């Protein structure tokens, strides 16, 4: 998993590539923890993400809860597999997916 962060004027762009799973989720969590307080708005770019397991969902949910109080959170470039996961878990209703 590769995480690329870009914070521009309170807008945080986070690009996640590879696999977001049990093993890698803590890494993303740590990365986010560093910058999340500084951002009001967050955009996840999942274009390069192959799949996501519930560990990733946990992070998305936790982040959504935090960002929902601020400027909000968007998830972009979701592939089929991940979209199906969002749909199955009801995350498609919670997240703002573009």
């Amino acid at each position: 998993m590769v995480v690329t962060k870009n914070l521009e004027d309170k807008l945080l762009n986070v690009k996640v590539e590879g696999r977001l799973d049990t093993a890698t989720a803590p890494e993303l969590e740590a990365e986010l923890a560093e910058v999340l307080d500084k951002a009001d708005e967050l955009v996840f770019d999942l274009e390069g993400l192959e799949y996501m397991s519930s560990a990733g969902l946990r992070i998305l949910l936790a982040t959504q809860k935090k960002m929902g109080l601020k400027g909000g959170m968007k998830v972009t470039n979701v592939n089929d597999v991940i979209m199906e996961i969002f749909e199955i878990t009801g995350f498609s209703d919670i997240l703002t997916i573009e």
Partner: protein
Amino acid sequence: MPKKTIKEMSASERRRHSLEAKTFHAVLMVSLLLGIVSLIMGLGLYAYSLGNQLIKDSFNLTASLKMVLDGSIDISGPCRRTVDIYHSLSEEEKAVQDEAYYERYSEIAQDPTVISAGRVLKDFYDNNNVGDIFIAMYDEETCTLLYIADPDEKRPYPTGTWEEVEERELRRFLSWDGKGTLYDLSYTAKYGWLCTTGVPIYSHDGNICAFVLADVSLTELFNGMRGFVTNYVIATAITVLLLGYLMKRHIKKNMVVPINEIAGAAEEYVRSKRDSGATTTNHFEGLKIDTGDEIENLYLTLSGMENDLNNYERDLTKAIKDKERIGTELNLAMRIQRDMLPTIFPPFPERPDFDIYATMIPAKEVGGDFYDYFLIDDDHLCLVMADVSGKGVPAALFMMASKILIKTTSMSISDPAKILERVNNQICNHNSQEMFVTVWLGIVELSTGKLTAANAGHEYPMIKKASGQYELIKDKHGFVMGGMENMKYTSYEIQLEPGSEVFVYTDGVTESTSEREELFGTGRLLEALNSKAFDTPKEVLDNVIRSANSFVGKAPQFDDITMLCFSFKGPNAWLEVEKAKTEAQREDKYMKELTLEATITNIPKVTDFVNEELETLGCPLKVQMQIDVAIDELFGNIAQYAYDPLTGPATVRVEVEDDPMAVIITFIDHGKPYDPLESEDPDTSLGAEERNIGGLGVFLVKKTMDDVTYEYKNGQNILRIRKNM
């Protein structure tokens, strides 16, 4: 030579010594004695009375003769003249009584008074049974008897015949006072015993001039006596023999035979007892003895005794049997008690994740120490170490009851403190003997190494942690069990790591006493435990025993020495086992297996392994992604929770089905039993604020896979997912 008993004698000897013979002899002896005495007395009496009669008759004859003479014939003249002539003769003239001598008395002999007196005498002689009857005079001077008239024709004593007489006779006759019977007994060679009776004839001047004398021979009397004796002896002998014979028969019938019967019965009794060990006999009872005396009494007594002995023996046999039975049963009970302790090591050879060794060295007397270990389920091992108060059978019984109660209760209650509380109450309910038991009880969750334990007044456990050293764990002691109802106990938890060991023991170990009366103590025990690293629990215990023995020396062992060592290897110990199994199954065509330590870092290895298989099947990428997610969820769960805080192995198996084409992936682990399908699905309709993050993974798997099943089997969680292609 020792005296023979009647039993050792021959038949003839026995006859001689028998009661019959003795009776017979006794009768003979007594009869003989009596016979002799009575014979002597009879003879005496006979002789006395008959003799007396003879003498009296003879005397009366002389008296009546004298009276006849006194009335008719005066013979005093011729008498005096005869005496005178006799006196006038010289010694020489008297010496020879020849015709010349008699010539001198012829004139007197021819005297008519003499002749007529002779005639009277003759008359008397003829008519009476006397030896001789004559008239004669004793001459004091010459001590002779001078015959005056003697009519005996066969043996004539002419007038003037003299013969010497005993002076005693002479004096008696001459000095007779006229009272009683005048007689004299004398023995003559010629006539034998003679009795001479006589009556004096007085002359006119009142002097004795002669005697009428009669001789009576006693020989006849004695002859009569001889006959009497002969008859008497014959009669007596016959009587005695008859009497003896009858007595003998009587004795034989009434004594000898019954006594022999009794003796025979006694012999039979002894023989039957000795040879066949008969318990019920009726040797005496069978006899028919009806003598009505002491022998019958003896028979009745013996018969009663036999009966009593039979009863006694029956009772005794029963008592002995009872005792034997009780002894056997007691031994059996002891063995059952001993067998209650598991003694097969290793007790769970199929389990690589732990090892146990325990031992009890019993003291002389049976004690109540016990240990126990058993799997409550595949994931929970219960360890028990206990010590019942007291010794002997009561302690053994109490131990059995306690052990069973603890085990059965442990099967249904998982908290050690609660187990002890329940068992304590159950013991208290039925503890009339006020016995108690100290117990340490621990339950190890084998998949995680979590030891939960509680202590009811027992010795502190020794636990070896990761540091590699045994430590005394001063756990919270509850009250001994059986002491008081409704006691509360406290469970405590200790996390065991792979390599941890638990050593529990009874006070028999720490209170082993040396010859110098020193206690082995926990200090020395700890020293022994930490003296080096041991490979197996058995080595640990052996070393403790060695140390204790060398410390105790020759002092006797007072108490049971009971110890248990549990060695925890950790769930990862399964890894090699499972890997070996996987290796064995690698040949299988459509089944691929991978066994590895379940860690998060190992997830990619699993994913790669499965993907490789999926690729050969031409699995669509989307399906592969879904499966990868499922692997992440499921294997991740095992890695994070199954062995927490330890790690253990997991096996992932990939199988392919043809119709319809499907992939089946199985996740197997030795972790604590956990069915992920049991938890409720998360409510996916809730908003972000209300959503919980738990349960999503499994939910995802359920939704993306075509079938998910779970089972717990052989200590393993088996989760199977199926994805149709």
